């Protein structure tokens, strides 16, 4: 089994067609994890309602094995930060993350969780949960449709299936150098102290710079002439 990582892909597919399924321990493990994501039952604002809608009959998150919403962080392995994280709430969110067992994943759902969204100019709104927590997936939208959350969960499952458990580039949970807990910010006289976790996030050096200088490489100019 340990050599399966080096088995070439075409041979594996060929065998699968003949009814012989060969897999590595790693991908079997990841396959199991990806299809039994237990999210933390934890909603902050508007996006939480769309998150609930995604678990309901029409969209049925259970089809992806992610319907077991656990009220206790100890039993959860996916935190969907759904809604505005205020400065008053942020320490609790970090504490909940710390209490979750490894391996754990964070989805920032909605504009507010990603960047503070439309409320980011305010005195009590955290400009993105990625200042304190390592976010695995961002789902923009205000709020994202339930399908967008499903799309995000599918993306996350792909990410988990592609994770390595050993060697360089291994997943965060398997890397002993990566902490499983992050410091909890404190209430200060005008906001949180520290305002961000410098290990996870740094303020952009030039906020006015074009965020996307190599943009042409991403989307080519369309000409059909």
């Amino acid at each position: 089994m340990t050599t399966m990582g080096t088995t070439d892909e075409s041979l594996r597919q060929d065998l699968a067609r003949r009814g012989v399924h060969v897999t590595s321990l790693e991908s079997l493990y990841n396959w199991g994890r990806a299809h039994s994501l237990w999210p933390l039952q934890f909603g902050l604002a508007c996006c939480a309602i769309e998150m609930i809608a995604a678990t309901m009959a029409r969209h049925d998150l259970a089809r992806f094995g992610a319907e077991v919403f656990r009220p206790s962080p100890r039993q959860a392995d996916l935190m969907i930060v759904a809604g505005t994280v205020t400065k008053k709430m942020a320490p609790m969110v970090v504490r909940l993350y710390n209490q979750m067992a490894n391996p754990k994943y964070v989805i920032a759902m909605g504009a507010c969780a990603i960047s503070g969204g439309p409320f980011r100019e305010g005195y009590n709104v955290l400009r993105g949960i990625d200042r304190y927590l390592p976010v695995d997936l961002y789902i923009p939208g205000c709020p994202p449709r339930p399908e967008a959350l499903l799309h995000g969960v599918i993306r996350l499952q792909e990410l988990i299936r592609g994770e390595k458990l050993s060697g360089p580039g291994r997943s965060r949970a398997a890397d002993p150098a990566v902490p499983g807990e992050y410091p909890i910010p404190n209430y200060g006289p005008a906001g949180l102290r520290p305002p961000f976790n410098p290990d996870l996030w740094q303020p952009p050096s030039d906020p006015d710079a074009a965020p996307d200088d190599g943009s042409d490489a991403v989307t080519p100019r369309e000409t059909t002439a």
Partner: protein
Amino acid sequence: MRKLKQLPGVGLLKGMLVTGRNFFGSYRNPRRLVTVSYPEQRLLLPESSRNFPFLVYDGNDSVEGLRCVACKTCERECPSGAIRIVQARDENGRPAKHPERFEIGIDACMGCQICAEVCPFDAIKMDSDYEHAATGRTRPMVHNKLRLAKSNTYYHRIKPREAAEVDARLEMERFRKEEARRKREEAARMKKEAAAKAAAAKPEAPENS
């Protein structure tokens, strides 16, 4: 309603009946069979459905054909401050009527469609595409000009009724403008002719005197 005149437990049974009807009904009754298996099946979104804005371009070139003239109305009116426009300048340094940079941060956009509502040129419209989940925050969450530009054909495909209205309106405007230009030219020509006639009738022009 507050006093029950029945055996205890009957109310519970009635409730169970409802649950049972829902349970078994969800196998055959189309009213209770509502699940849409998302990646394979998709809900048919109504035409007005909106998520994030995009820029419309006419013709074949996604840069030259942009309807946007960089008037910055949407940038000023955007409630979440998600739009950033830098106006282009021509070779003489004068402001040109197209955007040099047009960026919409979809990490802050709340899809309220006010930009589309206030745009005087029908250049910015709302897309209904919602699959934007990404692992990064800076690059995938800021849509630049090239990513925002979508053809009028695309607009017609997602919103046929609205796009047809917009096209008719733009055509009308173009026609009116053309008409006005023609009239102006006509008037100028008439004036010129009248002046020429007057000059012919009065050969002793002032410069001679």
